[in-house]
């Protein structure tokens, strides 16, 4: 059964505009629509009326790329746990619902337009240390270095991070530490990541600070909001790696 909803969408022309909520009524919403298809429908209607469409980020629409965002009724990626906005469906809502849609809000995530924010600060953090050095030449045998099951599982779970920024959006301090900790964990616990291990954590945290993200106060909102269910224990590991890296560098010239 199709139903009607009211949307309160954050509209902001550019970084320099202050922004405001605009209300839209949308009828004939099918429970089978994805949340983004619902917004597409709204945009088609706006376009037909000659009005400016709502800008929002999306790409794969299958929950793997990390492009979609949206702070829906006070929750990053909406009410389903472990789910990106593109995988959220309108069957989670019902007739007469009022849905607030806001962009990720954090100083380093400047609003580009409406619901689109600039997440290039994440790219700069990755550039600072989110890589390993590999000699060029023939492709190596994938199994040349044996890695225990526990470690490879841990690294794989951390590598599931799609860099969407929901952790920053959910954190009361707009801290990026879940994101950074996932990247550090993924690379630092595997032998391939060991040569740059301590340099990496130091550089990535330094760029994270420069970008203006807040500090973790251990409240676990990030883990709950993460569509890929990255664990907050990674933050503990990030702290440990950082402390060891600083102690090591203090005792080496």
């Amino acid at each position, binding site marked *: 059964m199709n139903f009607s909803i009211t949307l309160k969408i954050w509209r902001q022309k550019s970084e320099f505009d202050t922004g405001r909520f605009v209300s839209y009524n949308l009828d004939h919403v099918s429970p089978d629509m994805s949340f983004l298809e619902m917004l597409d429908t709204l945009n088609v209607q706006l376009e037909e009326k000659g009005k400016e469409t709502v800008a929002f980020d999306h790409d794969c629409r299958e929950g793997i790329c990390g492009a979609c965002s949206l702070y829906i009724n006070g929750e990053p990626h909406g009410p389903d746990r472990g789910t990106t906005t593109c995988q959220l469906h309108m069957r989670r809502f019902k007739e007469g619902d009022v849905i607030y849609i806001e962009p990720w809000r954090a100083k380093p995530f400047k609003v580009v337009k409406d619901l689109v924010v600039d997440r290039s600060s994440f790219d700069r953090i990755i550039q600072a240390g989110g890589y390993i050095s590999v000699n060029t030449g023939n492709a190596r045998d994938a199994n040349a270095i044996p890695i225990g099951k526990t470690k490879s599982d841990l690294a794989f779970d951390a590598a599931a991070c799609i860099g969407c920024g929901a952790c920053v959006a959910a954190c009361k301090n707009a801290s990026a530490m879940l994101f950074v900790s996932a990247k550090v964990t993924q690379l630092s616990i595997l032998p391939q990541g060991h040569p740059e291990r301590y340099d990496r954590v130091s550089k990535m945290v330094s760029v994270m600070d420069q970008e203006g993200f807040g500090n973790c106060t*251990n409240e676990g*909102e990030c883990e709950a909001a993460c569509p890929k269910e990255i664990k907050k224990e990674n933050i503990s590991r990030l702290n440990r790696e950082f402390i060891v890296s600083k102690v090591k560098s203090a005792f080496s010239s």
Partner: protein
Amino acid sequence: MSKNCAVLDSSIGKKVIMAITGALLFGFLLSHLAGNFLMFCGAEAYNNYSHALVSNPLIYVAEFFLAAVFLGHIINGIILTVRNKKARPVEYAMTQSLGEKSIASQTMIWSGLIVFYFLVIHLVTFKFGTDVSPASADGVRDIYSLVVARFSEKIYSIFYIMCMIMLGFHLSHAIQSLFRTLGLSQPKYLAIIKVLSILTGIGIAAGYCIFPIYFGFIK
């Protein structure tokens, strides 16, 4: 900025300072509480203990160290709170709690500042306060009678109890946070650490509240 200053200014560096100074302050809280229990051994035992502490020249070193630890904790706590606020210049119209966000975790700066206010009053009242009965010939202050006199004022006792509840509140989030900040927590122990953290908060608050309750309302 030199290498070491940069570490102290980094996000995790600052948090590590909070955790280490917090742990030291917690140690101080425990030893102070142990001293308080001497009140139940009578005036003489308590006064002599207090005298032994202040007449040891090492007390100046200890006091200086303690003041530095307090200042380090307070200044870093304020800087962190300000930075965290700045990281989100525009607030959400609607937010929901998804994780373990609690009233205690969101009000650390306020519970902390109340504890600081209490600390000032506490020092003014006892350490630098005027005694109710004169010191003995060998210079032992009658701190026992001073404490009993203050706690027998119900208003003072109530103020004291409220502040100790705020301290307990601070600790209920702080203790588990400390382990996580220092990277010492493991997923399988986290649930236990969190329960212990709340129990520690309750325990410290209850421990300190025994005295105002006993001298203010029972005796």
